[in-house]
């Protein structure tokens, strides 16, 4: 139970909001849940709903809207590559194809060993240094096939 495992963190988040507005804490609490379980599981969504006193449907809707909340289990490393138009003009679309080939999965999937999840995402505000990816939220700029291979090797060893 999230409430027991992360009691201090939850209390810290809730303290930022007046008690009658505690539903505003939904996003920080979902991040805690995602940290704890690796993704926003159905169980986690119901726990968060209970903590903030709203219907689980409302929490599910928020998880569904924001791409950084995962509804399915993800790999240890989540690689989000932007393939919006400006990035694509700098070769992001071809880069994604390479990533898929190299990892042996399609965008949106996780490698069978549970190590990597590849996603294509909307603008992450770094077109000037595209192709760009976030790996577990950390930016990697001006990626190439070679630098991607190196990155995978590093991550595989860690």
């Amino acid at each position, binding site marked *: 139970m999230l409430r027991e495992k992360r009691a201090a963190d939850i209390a810290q988040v809730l303290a930022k909001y007046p008690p009658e507005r505690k539903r505003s804490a939904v996003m920080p609490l979902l991040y805690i849940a995602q940290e704890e379980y690796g993704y926003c599981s*159905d169980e986690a*969504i*119901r726990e968060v709903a209970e903590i903030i006193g*709203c*219907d*689980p*449907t*409302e*929490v*599910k*809707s928020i998880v*569904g*809207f924001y791409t950084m909340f995962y509804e399915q289990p993800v790999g240890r490393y989540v690689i989000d590559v932007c393939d919006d138009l400006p990035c694509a003009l700098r070769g992001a679309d071809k880069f994604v194809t390479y990533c898929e080939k190299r990892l042996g999965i399609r965008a949106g999937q996780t490698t069978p060993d549970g190590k990597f999840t590849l996603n294509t995402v909307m603008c992450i505000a770094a077109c000037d240094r595209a192709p760009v990816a976030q790996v577990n939220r950390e930016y990697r700029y001006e990626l190439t096939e070679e630098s991607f291979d190196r990155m995978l090797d590093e991550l595989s060893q860690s």
Partner: protein
Amino acid sequence: MADLVNLTIDGVPVSVPKGTLVVDAAKKIENDIPVFCYHPKLKPVGMCRMCLVDIGMPKIDPATKQPVRDEQGNVVIAFMPKLTTACTTPVSEGMVVRTATEQVRAAREDILEFLLTSHPLDCPICDKGGECPLQNLTLGFGPSVSRFDYDAKFHNEKHVPLGDLIYLDRERCIQCSRCIRFQDEIADDHVLQFHDRGRGMEIITFSDPPFDSYFGGNTTDICPVGALTTADFRFKARPWELASTQSLCTHCPVGCNITLNTRLETKSGGYEIKRVMPRQNEQVNEIWICDKGRYVHHFTRAEDRLRQPMVRRDGRLVEATWEQALQLVGERLKAAGTSVAAVVGDRIANEDAYLVAKLVRALNGAIGMSPSVPAHYADVARAFGVGAHANLAHLGKGDVILVVNGDVEEQAPVWFLRLRQAVVDRGAALVIAHSRSTKMHRYARAIHRYEPGYAARWVADRSEELIAKESLKDARNLLIVFGDEQLDGPSARALAQGLANLLIATGHAGKADSGLLPLYPHANTQGVFDVIAGADRAAASNGANGKVGADLRSPICDSRFEVAWLIGVGDASDAPSAGFTVVQELFMTALAKQADVVLPALSFAEREGTFTSGDRRVQRFYRALPPLGEARPDWWIAQEIAKRLGHSWGFQGPAHIFADLAHSIPHYSGLSYEVISKSEPQWPPMGRGDLYYGGTVYDNTGGLGARYASDAERDPAGVRPYDGAAPEPTIAGLERRPRPLYRDGELIRRSAVLASHIVPAQEVA
């Protein structure tokens, strides 16, 4: 008026109150701006873009702050660079709206083309087909051909159960969010939301249980496409095959106006109800009904409805002709003399109760009500009930709503919706006194508690404290909603009297939007009381024996009579013991099985009549179905029995009976079928030809009803507080458990669609 705003729409001048939205202002001059997401009962969101119009304002000179004029002296209008949503833009002085320009026409066509890119166009099998706003608006404003390839359509799940009562067709959905907003803003059950975004956006529920709301059916009415359908009606009929009859819901004291949609069914041997829909009456239910009212209709054509009179021969009930049965009842009544007791259920029409009481009075018998508790306080509710012109929509800031010992959502669901809006949207203060928690508690400013059964004692002891603490004397209005759960008759009476005293003490007695609102069990509790108690008063003033009304509060079920006549008492468990029992019913109830004669009655759907709602509105219902078998209306049966006893009344039907009733019952004088059948256009317009709903079921042509004045209104000088202390709770009272909406009963049991929702009597807590 100072806060009227003047504008022109397509050159037509219109003046509307400040804050009115352009779309509503246009409605006032019958300019229907097409909409999908906008609904006049919901807050605007501007999501669908269908209502785009061209809006301009007078150009203001920044230096002089005066409108700029051209050479001819006309005010120069500065139009917005792009089209604007009429549903989110409030009117302003001098505004010019253009809805008939080429730009607007093209915008509407574009929006429809987009909406139809993935709409399945399965109209031939869609429940909404024929009364679908998307169909209507496409025909009116859409492109004649689509540039999209049918094979390129985005397909989606078609039969998604959101709960056991509502199905979602994801590819028909146009994401207008009316259903989500209804559940959020009106029902306050937040069980529907959007999930994902863009092309992937869809309606979901993640609640447990899923879409489970007493008001869920309303989402299928306001859905502008066939995305939401009810488990009860889906694939059952096409809207254009249905006949509509103006009717009333019978299940609670609200008196919701409904439309019964019927169709000829060869296999069931006649017409049957295919669907129950709300009928607009802004003073009663607006355009809402609860799911009980929507789904409990199946009893009307249940296989086991009584179709033939039955008499007991050699210990067994066997079928008989009306002549045989009436003859027998007549003989037994003749032989019984005055040892006759009638018990009348509170679902039967005023006209039925009136003739039963008339006959019992002629026989000098006794009469009682079932359930008997409301008879103990219905006169108090009538004396201090809400004013003749009260409307829950009037309540808001400065008003206090006091709920005592009642569960408004369970016992009068549509009052719950309307009272909640008075509190949440318009700022009325809610004070609750109850022995347990209810959904209404969410909105309370103050909550008071007492032990179960002690409601009357609590009110008697704490009134002064309550008046001071909640500043009840300073309130603009004081509306008191009260229930009788866990109270016996004397305690329920003491509670009603204590609350009436509270109205008097705070100066609210007799005020238009103040007064008592009783949570009676059924649709005609007040009416049956009025009619049988009032008939007695008339008799008393004529010098006749006043026994009828005197017995109303006495426990006739504890006495023994020669003949007991039980009319529509349903699954009531107690009855007077008698040498000979006649039961008039829809079903072979436990009491009917024990009876000597069982007479088959017609349901409300098969006849006409009137009900008096919990707030004393007398309303008409009309015949939707042909009679079933040999069953007859209760008034007809009473008149035929009277005939066997030598009373030839010669009433031709309910209208004729009502004229006599209104003549002899003082509270009903001035009321007639003509008065209560009057209708007037409702605002917001929601009926025929309107774009918010493609069908005609909301049309109210059967009458808005009329409320008779309370005693406190009629005779303010005669208002006196009641005296007498509240009695101790009794076991009998405590055993009257709270009544949940889906409590088990003879009628709800016949609706398979609600089977999993029924709360068995022993589990009621």
